[in-house]
């Protein structure tokens, strides 16, 4: 009898173990990782900017859905695509080194592609973190931008009549493992002609120093923008001198200021860096050539300690023949026919200057961030400043850095 019971208990125990085993094994799932063979790295900006104003309230909003290699039906309406970048809004003034919009945004509107999209992104190439670049198939790809209403309904769920307004349908050629930025642009302000500009970036192939910060400039404004009458342009006081546009050929002068807590261009500058000639920029919406990078040392200030520095940058764009010493305009001149525009790069770019100024404001091109034991540590960066019609944009690229130690 006793033996029998022991046997009974054993069998139930075996059953229990068997059931457990079954549960554990059936709980396993094989994860299929998506993979793009021979990818190119692509970042897309929508430079068709707009400001919501009373006067422009009836204008068509340049809010798009992007398709790469779309499948279209007989009527030309996209029904699916290999890669979809929906809710592509106008670009932000600042494109940060890391896609930080993902963590702190509650809106679906995407200021760039990939931006908030959860897609495969680039790896670290020569120290540069390409997590703001999406992997896309290389070779000849068809790319399409379709207007979409500004709401939160995904493109393919929209009503059919809303899906047929295609702005651009073209092909671009992408090479394996190369880094590209694609710009959606207005090419002519009078005819409103739009187009794309595909630029093959070279920053990851250059021998760049860790103690210099590099900036290159592009003027991708529409032809005829600065010449056009003021009443045809968007009215945004925050863009100060940029809102009227700048002339087609401009020299750029750099000033480095000692202290970014002093919100004034009357503050002390670093000796040797007050209105120093820096670069030249010409209007270009056709050629994909990369403009040369100019640099300045990040430890230029005597008050810096080799770990962190508090300097900020001001770029003055003057028409050739004019410079910071021969500037005939008063300090706050925002409406000077495109002869003088300027931008201050300090703090997070979301502040107003205390002094009378004509500058638009962007974030500091130097990245100050907690890294290792240093909080903050200052990092050199590679930057692109782009002027498009009445706006100025900063794209900062940064090398991979040590994580903070708390």
């Amino acid at each position: 009898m006793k033996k029998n019971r022991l046997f009974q208990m054993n069998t139930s125990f075996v059953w229990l173990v068997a059931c457990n085993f079954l549960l554990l094994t059936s709980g396993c799932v094989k994860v299929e990782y998506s993979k793009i063979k021979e990818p190119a790295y692509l970042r897309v900006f929508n430079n068709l900017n707009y400001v919501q104003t009373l006067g422009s309230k009836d204008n068509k909003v340049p809010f798009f859905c992007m398709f790469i290699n779309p499948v279209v039906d007989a009527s030309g309406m996209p029904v699916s695509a290999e890669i979809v970048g929906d809710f592509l809004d106008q670009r932000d003034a600042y494109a940060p080194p890391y896609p930080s919009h993902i963590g702190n945004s509650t809106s679906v509107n995407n200021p760039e592609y990939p931006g908030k999209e959860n897609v495969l992104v680039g790896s670290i190439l020569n120290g540069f973190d390409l997590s703001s670049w999406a992997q896309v198939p290389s070779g000849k790809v068809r790319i399409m931008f379709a207007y979409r209403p500004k709401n939160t309904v995904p493109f393919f769920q929209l009503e059919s009549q809303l899906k047929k307004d295609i702005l651009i349908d073209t092909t671009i050629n992408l090479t394996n493992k190369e880094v590209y930025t694609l710009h959606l642009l207005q090419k002519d302000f009078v005819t409103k002609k739009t187009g794309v500009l595909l630029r093959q970036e070279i920053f990851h192939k250059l021998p760049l120093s860790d103690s210099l910060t590099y900036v290159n400039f592009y003027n991708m404004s529409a032809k005829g923008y600065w010449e056009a009458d003021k009443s045809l342009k968007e009215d945004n006081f925050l863009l100060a001198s940029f809102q009227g546009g700048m002339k087609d050929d401009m020299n750029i002068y750099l000033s480095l200021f000692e202290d970014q807590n002093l919100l004034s261009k009357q503050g002390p500058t670093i000796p040797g860096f007050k209105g120093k000639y820096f670069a030249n920029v010409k209007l270009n919406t056709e050629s994909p050539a990369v403009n040369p990078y100019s640099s300045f040392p990040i430890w230029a200030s005597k008050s810096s300690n080799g770990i962190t520095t508090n300097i900020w940058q001001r770029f003055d764009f003057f028409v050739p023949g004019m410079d910071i010493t021969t500037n005939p305009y008063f300090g706050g001149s925002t409406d000077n026919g495109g002869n003088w525009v300027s931008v201050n790069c300090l703090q997070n770019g979301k502040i107003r200057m205390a002094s009378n100024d004509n500058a638009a404001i962007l974030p500091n091109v130097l990245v100050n961030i907690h890294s290792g034991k240093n909080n903050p540590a200052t990092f050199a960066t590679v930057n692109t400043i782009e002027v498009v019609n009445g706006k100025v944009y900063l794209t900062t690229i940064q090398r991979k850095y040590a994580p903070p130690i708390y």
Partner: protein
Amino acid sequence: MILAIGMQILGLVACKHEDLTIAVPNENIRPAADFVKNNYEMRLFYAAIKKVGYVDQLNGTGPFTILAPTDEAFNRMGVYNPSDFDKMNQDSLKKVIGYHVLPRRLMVSDIPNNGIDVRYATLSDAELYVSRASTNPNGGAENELYFSGSEVIRQDVVLANGSLQVLDNVMKPNFNKTVQSWLAGQPEYSVFVSGLKKFNLWDQLAGKSEFTIFAPNNEALKNVGITSASLNEMDASKYQGDVLFGVYLLYDRHFFVSDTQVFARINSNSSFNYFLKNSGYYMTFGGGKIYPSFKLGFGLVLRPGNGPADSPIKSATGDIVAKNDNLCSNGLVHHLMDGMVTPEQALKK
């Protein structure tokens, strides 16, 4: 072992279960028409619904969104008693009331952020315009809502078969009427109309292009020395018509007065500047909620040009809410309380 398991089962079974009483769901959440009926702030709106025979439909399954103007809003238009609706053309009344009902449940959160002139279908054949000022990129968050120029003073009231938004004003749709035929039907603007006719500005108002018209009534034009008698004596060739009467026309735009308030919220700029057509005169249209009533109103300021030395010639306002935002098929007409230009100022040089 078996004993132990058995004890546990017994232990679980031994719990005492009392009959749980769940609160009976409230079955008296009222459908749209009943809700309006039982709300003393909306007695006139209910009377209108009843008059045009919408009661049963609005108590049906829906869903509906009711845009309910308050009694005060009707009072401002001169409607004080339910019997006042009897004097009106019943077909037009039904269309206007139908314009205040959407065949869908619309909550504030369904409207796109900072959406301007988002169109929604109504029970009438015309669409209405919704503007929602929700965020200002330069800082500050607001959530103001306007239906065809009328402010929502209480948002998202939940009904059994939809939702209800309380309007501060009765919307004034004119459906297929152009701004021209609307003006022609208003005797208080008769001098303005004959002025437009005299200076060849009238015919364009029946076309397809859009207008925002700031219409001065006869009293207002008298302030600047224009009456029907003086108009008859005027030699049209001696005056700049685009200044004398063109000053009241804004071409190619349709602005609700509320748009000024909406854009003040969205981008801190509530005004629009423009040159008068065929003229160097420069006009600023602006507005918002005007102190001390905090009701919507607008103002116009006329300057000889847009230079720094061009000081204002004249400014005028329109803040009688009930007379603004007359929505026509090709634009809007607002009521202007003062004239802008005297005949002497518009003489050809």
